[in-house]
């Protein structure tokens, strides 16, 4: 179980406090930042490829849009996809791990063998195919039932679900390992002897005990999902313009590098924001793991 002083112990390190501050700043900026921009900043303007200045601190892009505004919009989508995808993977992974570990024996063997196989399949490649196969159908469906939000966010919804569907493997492995150990502990045996149902034992006795580990791996899954999303968007097969995510912004930035003229701000600012966020998440996740799971 989490001891009360855990958070305080981690935050005693200055680096951890810095990471938390970075995350809070990025999340806050993504949540309310885009609304603070005046109307003229949100639309394409006449000022193409302007370098960073006071009026446009991150410069402007090919269409004269303010890059700072775009980066915040991208942060919104990237963070939402990362968090929601990680949450889906958390439910799937912990349910799978709980069942496999608790059942044990042959069931456990087969279930974990499946995880091994899935580990070695290039899963992102299937996501690419998946998104492109289902996007049109989801849009049609949205048009039929008249859900305008699903029309405009169909790709994001599919992204969240499919990324959640592939990132649960590590969670399943970790949870299963924990359950295998907890299962043999006296309190589980006692609950069994007292005649409690398996479902109750899993939910009341095992789940609370593995919750800290689940939370640790949640913090480590969020950056993984954000990276996956940016990978797909970078290839032009994830988030589509005019919407933006960090991956699609970076793709525009990478294309703008050529020997004649280097628009470095198109690459630098999205890259710096994204890397700082991922670094902070990974660092905090690591510290949490070291504190809560000293075995690893």
């Amino acid at each position: 179980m989490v001891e009360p002083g855990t958070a305080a112990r981690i935050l005693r390190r200055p680096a951890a406090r810095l990471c938390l501050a970075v995350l809070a700043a990025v999340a806050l900026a993504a949540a309310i930042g885009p609304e603070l921009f005046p109307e003229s900043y949100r639309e394409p303007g006449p000022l193409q490829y302007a370098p960073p200045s006071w009026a446009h601190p991150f410069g402007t892009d090919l269409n004269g849009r303010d890059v700072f505004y775009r980066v915040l919009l991208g942060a919104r989508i990237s963070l939402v996809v990362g968090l929601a995808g990680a949450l889906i993977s958390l439910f799937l992974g912990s349910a799978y791990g709980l069942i496999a570990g608790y059942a044990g024996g042959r069931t456990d063997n087969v279930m974990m063998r499946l995880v091994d196989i899935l580990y070695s399949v290039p899963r992102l490649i299937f996501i690419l195919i998946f998104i492109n196969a289902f996007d049109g159908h989801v849009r049609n469906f949205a048009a039929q039932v008249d859900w305008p939000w699903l029309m405009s966010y169909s790709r994001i919804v599919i992204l969240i679900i499919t990324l959640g569907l592939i990132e649960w493997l590590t969670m399943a492995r970790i949870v299963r390992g924990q359950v295998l150990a907890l299962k043999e502990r006296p309190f589980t045996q006692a609950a069994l002897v007292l005649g409690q149902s398996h479902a109750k034992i899993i939910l009341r006795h095992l789940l609370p005990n593995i919750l800290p580990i689940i939370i640790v791996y949640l913090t480590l899954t969020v950056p993984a999902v954000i990276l996956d999303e940016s990978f797909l968007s970078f290839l032009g097969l994830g988030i589509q313009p005019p919407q933006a995510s960090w991956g699609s912004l970076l793709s525009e930035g990478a294309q703008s590098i050529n020997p004649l003229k280097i628009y470095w701000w198109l690459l630098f600012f999205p890259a710096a924001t994204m890397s700082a966020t991922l670094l902070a998440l990974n660092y905090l996740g690591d510290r949490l793991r070291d504190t809560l799971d000293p075995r690893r």
Partner: protein
Amino acid sequence: MLRLIIRRLPALAFVLFCVVTLTFFLIRLAPGGPFDRERKIPPAIEAQLLAKYKLDGPVWKQFTGYIGDVARGDLRLSTKYRNRSVNEILAQTLPVTFALGGIAFILATVSGIWLGAFAAVRRDTVSDRLAMGVALLGLSIPMFVVGPILVLVFGLWLKWLPVGGWGSPAQIVLPAVTLALPFAAVIARLMRTSLLEVLNQDFIRTARAKGLTDRKILYKHALRVAILPVVTYMGPLAAHLLTGSIVVETVFNIPGAGGFFVHSILNRDGFLLGGVVIVYCSMLIVFNLLVDASYALLDRRIRVDG
């Protein structure tokens, strides 16, 4: 070892079958067909095209026909790159992808193992913190950021290395480093954790009591055992490298299979897509089998069950 391979074979064939089936039907679900152009093609010509590419008749018949062809090693014609067979395209592009992936694989494992061992031996010193900081950085910066930055610095400013293309050894350096970097970071972290654990075990204490030097203990006893988690990671690593190579090939303009893969999805070029996926997956399956086999060789205590 041979027995292990034979026992795994049916399951692996089944996995491959699932992969082929999934790809075949998913690309058909996508809206738009392979022959959609801006101008509508006359129905007679379209029927002819469909027949030529064996896309006519009921879907299940198309499917069984395709499975049969694949089993014979014929991956059929690409519907986009007219009159070129998928086998031909893959024969040209896969060596490039595999060369890039192979070099990155060696780079990632060697540098990762070295960095992890370096940090573990100097546990809790400044060098350790620095090494692990670098690893965390490598883990957090996506390769499509590292790639353009390396191009910018070494290609355009310093002009030490070519910015892209494929053929000369100098052109391999930047893409291979870009591809290897995040995985070197993962391996370094794995290696550090594992070596720290091993160094605390009894047999190391025994070796030390015997009076062996630190060097000998590390190289003769500890590394051999500590490397096992890294070996387990090699299977997923190969999968990640193949996926990553798609991005790296785009960034560095390398004529590998990655570009064809992306375009085959956009063009609804089902057979080309299927070909790439089949080859990628069978490569990975064979590779994983080898990893499992070598795992058993490295540590005699482990029995790998089929």
